């Protein structure tokens, strides 16, 4: 898809004013892993909580559901805990962490010249197909993340680092599921 054009003249002033900055390569995965490990450690060390993402998305969704159909929220057991009565589903640490995550991704993308409207996909499928599968995959992810009480960040990463048995079982299941299906959908990515 995208090629890193490192030979382009690096005029910083120009890069700053131009709509698109020069796209920088991603960092080495071991470096990123160590850095992410420190972030995860600091999250636990300072707050006692790990990282999370789907929980924030969950609460954002429930907030809008509560605006549209407050009566419905009060009838569904699962939703009452977050938004029953006068509870505000956005009043939770994970919502603010999620806002931070989006902001952090945006700032990094902007600083490194990766803020670009595009579709990343395998070479053999159309944009349309890619987006349909992205939506379907997202739906499964969202559903599974709530069923498992956490996503890759809140369960695998955070629970894994503090040695939760359930989180390790969950992590193996995620990768197991991915590898199980990968061969059959190889056309999507290769």
């Amino acid at each position, binding site marked *: 898809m995208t090629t890193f054009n490192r030979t382009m003249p690096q005029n910083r002033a120009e890069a700053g004013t131009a709509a698109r900055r020069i796209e920088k390569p991603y960092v080495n995965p071991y470096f990123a892993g160590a850095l992410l490990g420190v972030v995860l450690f600091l999250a636990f060390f300072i707050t006692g909580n790990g990282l999370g993402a789907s929980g924030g998305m969950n609460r954002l969704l429930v907030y809008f559901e509560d605006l549209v159909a407050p009566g419905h929220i009060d009838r569904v057991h699962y939703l009452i805990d977050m938004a029953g009565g006068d509870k505000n589903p956005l009043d939770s640490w994970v919502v603010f962490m999620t806002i931070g995550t989006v902001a952090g991704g945006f700032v990094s993308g902007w600083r490194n010249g990766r803020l670009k409207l595009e579709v990343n996909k395998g070479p053999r499928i159309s944009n349309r197909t890619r987006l349909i599968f992205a939506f379907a995959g*997202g739906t499964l*992810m969202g559903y599974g993340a709530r069923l498992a*009480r956490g996503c890759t960040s*809140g369960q695998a990463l955070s629970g894994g680092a503090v040695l939760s048995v359930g989180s390790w079982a969950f992590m193996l299941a995620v990768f197991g599921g991915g590898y199980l299906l990968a061969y059959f959908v190889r056309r*999507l990515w290769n």
Partner: protein
Amino acid sequence: MAPFPLPLQSLLGQWGAYVVYMIIGFAFGYVLEIAGFGKSTKLAAQFYFKEMTVLKVMFGAIIGAMVLIFLTSALGLLDYNLIWVNPTYLWPGILGGLIMGFGFILGGFCPGTSLVSAATLKLDGIVFALGVFFGIFLFGETVGLYEDFWYSSYMGRFTLPELFNADTGVVVLALVLIALLAFFGAELAEKYIGKMDTSKEPRYRFALAGVAVLIAIAGLLIGQPTNADKWASIAPQEDAKLTERAVQIHPAELLQTMSDRRLVAYMIDVRDESDFNEFHLIDAHHIPLDRLLDNVAEMHFQPANTVFVVMSNDETQATEAWRMLRAESVPNVYILEGGINNWIATYADATFKADNQRAVHVDDQLGYTFAVALGSRDPAANPNPDMFPIEFTPRIQLELKRGPTSGGCG
């Protein structure tokens, strides 16, 4: 007492705490983006063994955070009790994980990475994130159909050292070594399947590996603090509370707490089984001293308005239990003043007391005999507070909970 995690709410207030979470989230999103996790093709390549970035970053982060958490815990800086360890619901977790694995390979992201991708304007990331919202919506609408399953196979706060019955330090070191093996395998896969030039991999990765192993070994040698170690570090200030009798509550205060709708009285009766069967307060949990520490995790899961009250026949064993629980950072623990004997003296009727009081009293032994072991069906086990207007000096002061009450993806 270990100073971390910080009591963010009482230090900074609610909004201050939220700012801290936002900064951590910012760092999280930033690192995900520079790792390339905003790009679906890079994530999906993991499942074809071509580019193992996902494994390296995720496993690297897990072991990196893990060694630091258990080293700081061994050093007495971090209180592992106050850290959110995802409770295990085994089968819902595994089924949810499998569904997510399918979603991962079809959609190319997980929820967190799709947010970062969407933030950098990748259309597939934006559409994926919308799908996540839709999936969460579907879950909220359908979980009612199988709520029993969703709550099944609950094992509470269950950790790998408990599963393997091994020392925490050993488990941590073993996981580091497994990760290093996995990284080695990943590089082989990238070389032979992904046809990548792995000779250009930076040399500092060996240094990082060495540091992780060294920290794990240091944590193993120091060892995680025992209950006695933890008590020793807080003994001076906590013992003062005992001698000032600031934590021994009058039976009437306990009775009032039991009927107070704003509070949850969690009564812990540490006596032996026969005494417990003879007589105990209604809804009391029977947890003898030797099983007390196994139940600490459940106590930390209780809501913030819970008041824990330990009791024995007099106060000796209850005081011991109080020390153990305080060492494990259980908040709002109190001792029933004078124990069960004092409770019976306060609430049993006069004829019962006259007929059944034991002539010789040995410390921390039941001072009364019971013709029938009624347990909590004895009238004195559940007295009506209105029948006993008793003056007492209130001692319970609810302290703010320091650790998280929910976590993971709360």
